[in-house]
């Protein structure tokens, strides 16, 4: 029993480290796809890590009007994202801080990070920061009900609110039979994941055009290590959402810490799932144009309705099933 707990601990720690290391690579993969679609070469895999390293070594230029919020925001954002990351099961059924809280804590930890991001953008008093944070808050207030409701729809079937429990439950289900409600929930969560990670139909991560930017407008004042922390936590957040999608909707290959073969096998399956999901998101990014800001609520409304239908579908069918 003692050894069992010890190995679980090691494994969950490895999961968090994997997320930390893998996050820039997933962003790189989408960037590379986009570059390939435009007949460019694109950066190499080492480039993204080199960029992060370079940013960590640089000096910072900070506005003299910046208050303590400006200074503590990158740390708050990064630590909150890290805690949220350690609540998600990655390649085996447990997670490091899974005992700590359920999916409500998970959603609002991410919201706390976003809150500080918006505050810090207002802090220096530039017009871009204010614009960016107002946009971000508007959109996230619309994305949040969809995200929560989609997770609740899944939790209703699993009869548990913990993320570990969700992944374990859907791992044991016959996947075809529950497709009728997981499919709408998957659609809802995919839209929310795209909105939260600032991907193209909602936000464009590759441009600094003042008319369109949301996330970039908020971090315009940051440089050096602070910027590196913010960028990194943004990438981690994107990977968390992808892992959640992968482990709830495609739960095959999630190992339960028994047997070496499963443990060797499951990270490979995990990588395969993550990169195929990243492929889907990159494909959406290539095919679609960025939505006008006033049309984004329509998209998030669609996510909300899909989440409602997922819950309602379970009630309709479940009454007699």
């Amino acid at each position, binding site marked *: 029993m003692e050894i069992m707990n010890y190995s679980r601990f090691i494994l969950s720690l490895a999961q968090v480290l994997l997320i930390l290391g893998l996050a820039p690579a997933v962003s790189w993969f989408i960037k590379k796809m986009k570059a390939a679609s435009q007949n460019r070469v694109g950066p190499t895999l080492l480039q993204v890590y080199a960029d992060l390293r370079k940013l960590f070594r640089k000096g910072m230029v900070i506005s003299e009007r910046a208050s303590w919020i400006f200074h503590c925001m990158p740390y708050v954002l990064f630590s909150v994202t890290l805690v949220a990351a350690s609540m998600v099961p990655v390649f085996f059924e447990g997670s490091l801080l899974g005992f700590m809280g359920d999916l409500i804590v998970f959603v609002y930890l991410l919201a706390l990070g976003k809150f500080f991001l918006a505050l810090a953008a207002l802090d220096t008093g530039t017009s871009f920061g204010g614009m960016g944070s107002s946009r971000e808050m508007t959109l996230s207030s619309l994305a949040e009900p969809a995200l929560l409701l989609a997770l609740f729809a899944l939790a209703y079937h699993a009869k548990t609110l913990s993320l570990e429990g969700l992944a374990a439950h859907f791992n044991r289900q016959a996947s075809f*039979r529950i497709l009728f409600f997981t499919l709408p929930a998957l659609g809802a969560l995919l839209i929310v994941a795209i909105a939260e990670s600032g991907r193209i139909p909602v936000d464009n991560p590759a441009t600094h055009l003042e008319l369109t930017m949301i996330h970039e407008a908020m971090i315009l004042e940051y440089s050096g290590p602070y910027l590196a922390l913010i960028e990194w936590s943004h990438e981690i957040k994107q990977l968390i959402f992808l892992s959640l999608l992968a482990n709830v909707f495609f739960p095959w290959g999630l190992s339960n810490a028994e047997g070496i073969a499963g443990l060797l096998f499951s990270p490979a399956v995990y990588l395969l799932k993550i990169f195929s999901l990243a492929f889907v998101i990159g494909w959406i990014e290539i095919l679609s144009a960025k939505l006008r800001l006033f049309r984004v609520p*329509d998209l998030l*409304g669609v996510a909300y*309705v*899909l989440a409602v*239908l997922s819950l*309602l579908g379970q*009630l*309709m069918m479940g009454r*007699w099933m």
Partner: protein
Amino acid sequence: MEQEWILSIIHLTSMAFLVTSFALLVSPQLFSCIRFYAIHSFFLAVITLSTAFYNHVYHLIISAVLTLVLKTIVIPQIFFRMIRRLGMRKEVETYINIPLSLLFSTLLVFISFYGVGNMKALDPPLSKEFVSISVSTLFLGMFMMTTRKKALTQVLGLLLIENGLFLMGVTTTFGMPLLVEIGIFFDVLVGAIIMGVFVFKIRGAFEGIDVDKLTMLKG
């Protein structure tokens, strides 16, 4: 085992049926609206087919094939031709915007779900969620008819209602006698054509198919 597979397919397609009615309701382009109607009818045909196999009512296969041919191929083609000949604008014009109509239609689905209750009176033989799904499709069709400005999209709302009624008929009573059913299909086809002619007449008289202008008929 096989029955269970068919039942899962039925659940899946009925969900897709509901989602497609929403898509039909909120799609901003006229062409995609008609395409969604075709997809909607396709799912209807799949449900009819799986009902036929699940309950061993094989005359429903003919209904399924007729649905597939008429509603997913012929009627959308008629509409496409109509749009091309009218040369009308491609955007759907509504009285209320998309997020609000999404909210309203969600509310309508809720109402039909709770309003239908546990349906002891109907006691349908197949999986019983179809009564609430067809009632909500009815509601969504009515909602579409009341909030659209163009005559063509109102016709689409009417066809949505017809799909809901057909679903109700198939799943609660395994369809009417085949002769009646074929008659209904013919009615729908002729109805679509007649309404097309109406749309042309409306445009001829009022230089547009915006039904707001019909109020000018009042003395």
